[in-house]
């Protein structure tokens, strides 16, 4: 009985001998797939963070000068220095909290460089008045200055 029992046991094991392999393979595949999905999602998240949050974290801008009424009565310029470690693109200029249109659209400014941001403001710049200029980057970083015309 013992042997029989033992033989039965071995027989049963032998009968199930394929299943563990398959199940192990299935488990491996499932594990790899699951971890691949997790890894992919996480890697994608990291890439997004690197592209956005980390870049935003490294973004620094400073307004060096404002030139009023350049070329035409409404067109003016702001000289912006990229003092951060990521490239910057200005997407909005505001004068006294009123939006001004950037013409032409600003290019990216690479770290360590500076550039004029040209914009058109519909209001008038009156002599001896103080104006607030606000520049907003595509990542939402704000630079602000007050200038007297």
């Amino acid at each position, binding site marked *: 009985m013992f042997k029989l029992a033992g033989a039965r046991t*071995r027989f049963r*094991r032998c009968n199930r*001998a394929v299943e*563990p*392999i398959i199940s*192990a393979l299935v*488990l*491996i595949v499932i*594990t*790899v797939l699951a*971890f*691949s999905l*997790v*890894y992919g999602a*996480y*890697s994608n998240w*990291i890439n997004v*963070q*690197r592209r956005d949050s*980390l870049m935003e*974290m*490294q973004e*620094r*801008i*400073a307004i*060096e*000068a404002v*030139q*009023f*009424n350049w070329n035409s009565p409404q067109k003016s310029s702001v*000289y912006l*220095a990229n*003092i*951060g*470690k990521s490239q910057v693109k200005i997407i909005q200029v505001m004068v006294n909290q009123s939006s001004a249109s950037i013409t032409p659209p600003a290019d990216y400014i690479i770290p360590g460089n*500076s550039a004029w941001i040209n914009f058109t403001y519909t209001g008038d710049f009156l002599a001896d008045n103080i104006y607030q200029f606000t520049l907003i980057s595509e990542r939402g970083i704000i630079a602000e200055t007050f200038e*007297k*015309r």
Partner: protein
Amino acid sequence: MRNVSRCKRGQASAIGAVLFLALAVLMVAFSQEVFQTQTTMNEVDVERFQEKVVITSAYIASDGKLVLNMTNQGSVTANLVRLWVVDLTDNQFFSFNFVNLYIQPGARVSNVSSINFELGKRYSIRVATERGNIASYNLVPAVHARINIQASSTNLIGNNVTVVLSITNNDTSGNSIYNLVPQLTVSPGPSLILKEGPAPSRVDLLPAGSSAYFVYVYKVTGSGFTITLNGTFQNAPEGNYALAKIYATAIDVTAEVTTMPVFHLDAFGSVPALLDSQNNVYTYWGVSVVNPYNRTIKVFSTAVIATSSAIFAPGTLVGVNPTTGWSARSTSIFSGVFWDDGGSPISIPPFSVYNFTFRIQVDAPAGFLLETPINIEAVTTEGKFIKNYATSSDGTYPAINLYLTKTPSNPTASKTYALTEVPSSFTQTYNVTIYNSGRNDLNSKVNLLIRVPVGWADVSAASQTGWSFPSQSITQQEDGSWLITVESSSSMLADGTTLVYQFTATTPAVTYTTLYTLAVTAYYPGFSPSITAAYLSAVIQVVP
């Protein structure tokens, strides 16, 4: 078989573990990257915050170039990358890139730009650092500044006078004035001849809160006695100037003359003349002890003494100011009125005057008494002072008193021999009053001679009742003082009547309390002998 099956399950676990480990490594690496980025940017921000470059001065040199002096007041080395010059007048921009211009903490650098600046324009100078900090400096040709002129108020003709023009930039916006060129004009022009100055001729830069001093030396020619100085600076805003008046005189200011401010401790008298000696009428007398020093003096006694005649009736003496301490003595050959302190001397504060006044009846012997000497005396903590006057009396004479009144409508109610606390540069009317307190008429016109001291201005008098306007003459004398002469309309001043002459004058601009005397003489051309005349020394205290 058991071992085989365990081995197969171990592979899956190992793969899972590896993948999990890879994920964990990735997480740790990214966390490390985030932490590193945060640390780096924090350092960038801290360094930017610690950086402080200041433009200590910026000015346009005589060659038209901009001179820039900068100091790094921060704790990190600053890399200056760009200079901005904004022409605020014409809205033009210039920028220049610095090349490897580093300033160590605490260090200073000077930079002379190659730009040619045009004078008379407003400029904003900016220096940008690599960290994005901006140092600014505003240069303007002019702001509304505080201007002062300092010069001695009275100057001897032929001597030099030093004039200091001070200009203070009190602009609250922090603008600095560049190329400050002083301007001082003299009116009338020939009265002062410029010998030296201005020194310096210009100042490159006058930062906000600072003052510049320009020294001029002029020679006083005497072409004009009241000289107006107008001080300003080139490009000054309209109305930004200072005026000062100085006075030229031919008389040594150290001399004791009535047309100058009182420089020495002294006693002045106001003496009536003529005197009605028969009818025992009251006459009014004044003794002004003047203290022009910056220390208090004390008066122990004063006296009015007729040294060779007995004109005062001792029993009729009435002390007016002070009311006590008075006594009178008389013999056949002299008489006197005395005031004694009784152990409590009167203190006269610095730069002020005390006026002793009394009234007394004249009790002269009947008959003609011509120009009997009158001594005015005072004993003070600084010595005894004596002045001589004269008066005349007779039984047929009126009693003519001379004083100032503050109430011309009732001129006998207030008799004043000194005016105090008169403001500097203040125009007001002075009421010179002649009062016949006798019982005889004065059968003559009254001529008034009023000497207004040097430094006073705008002396004038309108036509007024009782006085002959055509006879009136107001002239500024060669020494800078003024002389008013005027004659009464009527050839008689009845007993008990008054005649008030009003003139206006502006007190000098004084920077410290100054004492002047208005010397007034009333004489009677129709009276013989016309040598006799009433005399008033009215002391005027002018305060800043």
